[in-house]
């Protein structure tokens, strides 16, 4: 076990865990931030996507020891009131079915749009193809990203 000082959603958080503990489980089990989801544990589905210094990363495959003082943002901290343009577009297009993959989809989309504010449809679909939606909401995800890109 070791003590780590994290910067999560703008707050300093201290946790005492094994250094190999993935950020996913640090968030879910130790910081009570359960919005970040477990889907595969091997960086294949994107359900666990969070931001580290603004980059979308797979928290299931990122040990806490690799995080250091990076600014971590989770779905709970993406915006104060669920009003990030991507979140608003998600509501406008009524994207979710079961909803389980959506935190990861939103986090990936938000990081992508920050780097590429005016993406083409091809750029959107290829940027989003690491995130599985088993319910098949892909067409709505893409429409929502287009809406959000126009707003941001």
């Amino acid at each position: 076990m070791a003590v780590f000082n994290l910067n999560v959603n703008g707050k300093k958080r201290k946790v005492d865990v094994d250094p190999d503990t993935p950020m996913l489980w640090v968030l879910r089990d130790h910081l009570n931030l359960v919005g970040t989801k477990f889907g595969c544990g091997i960086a294949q589905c994107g359900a666990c996507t969070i931001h580290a210094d603004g980059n979308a990363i797979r928290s299931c495959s990122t040990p806490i020891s690799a995080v250091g003082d990076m600014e971590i943002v989770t779905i709970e901290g993406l915006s104060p009131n669920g009003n990030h343009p991507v979140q608003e577009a998600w509501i406008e297009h009524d994207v979710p079915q079961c909803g389980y993959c959506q935190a990861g989809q939103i986090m990936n989309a938000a990081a992508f749009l920050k780097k590429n504010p005016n993406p083409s449809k091809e750029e959107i679909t290829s940027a989003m193809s690491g995130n599985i939606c088993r319910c098949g909401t892909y067409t709505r995800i893409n429409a929502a990203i287009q809406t959000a890109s126009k707003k941001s």
Partner: protein
Amino acid sequence: MKLNKGMNRRNFLKVSAASGTGLVIGFNWLAGCTPTNPEMSVPKSWTDINAYIKVADNGLVTIFSPNPEIGQNIKTAMPLIVAEELDVDWKKVIVEQADLNTIKYNRQVAGGSQSIRASWDGLRQAGATAKHMLRQAAANQWKIDISEVNTEGGELINAKTGDKLDYGDVAVAAASLPIPEDVKLKDVKDFKLIGTHVKNVDGEKIITGQPLFGIDYNREGQVIAMLIHAPAFGMKLKSYDAEAAKAMPGVDDVFVVDTSLEEPQWSDVNAFNELIVITGQTTWQVMKAKKAVNAEWEAVTPLENSDEHFAKLLDGVERQKGRVLREDGNIDAALQGAAKVVEKTYTAPFLAHNTMEPMNFFAHVTPDKAELVGPIQTPESLRGTIMKVLGMNEDQVTIAMTRMGGGFGRRLYGNFGLEATLISKKVGKPVKLIYTREDDMTQGTYRPAYRVKYTAGLDENNNLVAFKAKAAGIPGSPLFPDRFPAGTVDNYKGEGVNIDTNISTGAWRAPRSNFIAGAEQSFIDEVAEASGKDPIDFRLELFDRAINNPVGENNDYDAARYAGVLKLVKEKANWGQDMPGVSRGVAAYYCHNSYVAQVVDVVMKNNEPVVQKVWCAVDCGIVVNKEGAINQIEGGIIDGIGHAMYSQLTFKDGKPEQENFHQYDLIRNVQTPEIEAFFVENDIHPTGLGEPSLPPVIGALANALYKATGTRFYNQPFTKAKQADEILVG
């Protein structure tokens, strides 16, 4: 309309009496389930009107959604039906998930696309009865006749004076009134909410990452549990060594539980009853300890391989005598006399459900109580199993349903709930059981593997005169003998063959239809081609026959509605118009009492076929929530295309060869077509929608791929299986 179960007088009286004696249920509506009008004041008291409805003093209305939510969006649609008849402004409505309560509610199951179909009348009555009582209470207060009290948006209006009361103003008085026996339901033409586009009631919570799912549920003092099941179907535990695992930090214990049941019910499907359990403090610690357990397993029944499955299915279709499921006319004579005969065979592999949220459940068992919380499509069945295993009564076992990260049929089978219960009983603590993705994918309860051979005969005028289907499945035949094309052809024969296996299988979104529709509609396309007719015209001719002069009496579809969706998609997609570079395929299918016809457009990009667009016409009767309905249709189409193209579960020595998403391909964003959906407008009782758009798209896809590539796709998954004829008839 008469009251039905969940709406009967006894229940009405029970809750009403409670309210009448001043019972108010405190409830923090800010923690409720819908983006309600934030300007409204916080309610001080609530009054139960009936099992579905409670009204606050300030006019907010809570509507309970009785059924489990798996992503089919009934948590929005079911309360919407109540709200329609109650005549309440949707912005004043808070939706809450009901717990399992078989006294109050009917059929709390998510399965068979039945939620709306089976509850439509009851939900309408719940709303209409409550509205009647609120109107009566207002009439009493105004000293006028009930006929002079109108309602709108949660307000009561005095027709004489124009005075207004809020539902909240009369809720307490209404709750103590007698329950009307017979209430008038709205005319379909007066619907204000039903048929509109209403957003998911959990949308805000989902996009902000609020805890909604079973896996998000935590309880003070709980332990985390994970399982190790046998690595292969047919194996059982020989011995295990857990010393190293037990010594690891955060690990409480490692032990074995046996979940076998003396009298299993249908929902107790489970191939792995003997399980090694690891309990500990945190998920990661338990996950690591799980890898440190050394277990030895031994084969007790034959370890099966996918090539054997293929051979058994082939043998079943080609050499075994099937059960005759339906026979019209004389199939052999008709085929002998036919001018042309077409014969083709189709196959599909086992599939895993792969819900995005892996199986999990919370249980807390004490000597006199079992409390369960989690994602389950069949809470009542699970309760029955838990009662038997623990020797408890119905009122000792509670089940709270969480939102589910997907169901697709997997969560009809609640083995994980039983496992969590037995682990909690053993450790004497609250337990949260979590499967890894690997546990989930290799646990079983798969979509069966299938094979069907079709033979069709055309006469010299290219009319269909004979149709034969022989279908085999591991473990059960996929054929629906009384569905199309039965009823449209004089000589018909349907046969089924069942093949044993030790691999556990279960319902997977649109059971049997998820294979047979694609096969049948691909074959019909090939027969239409042999007849020289347009594939839509060919089908419409058959439906004409079934409308005007049906063969047999047990045809379980309405041929006119079937033809209706085909005609609608034909018109919307501009079928027949020349579209350079676009290859089109069509299919139509009936299941879950709904009719779907689709046109798939495929284009070639870099010499690869790409699905560009799917046009989809649906007749599901009255559409409750258009937004949710279209989302379901899109999801079913993407699901169907994805599994037909990319997905399979194969076995080597009883062991699934795909354990996680690096080996099991699911459709990805970039592979997804554009989709446009159209509804047949009618006033018919609503029918299923969670499943019906999936099955036919596989046929329409195969038919479009054929036009694009010249290859007929007989074997799923299309991108991986060989399509050559020789492996089909060997």
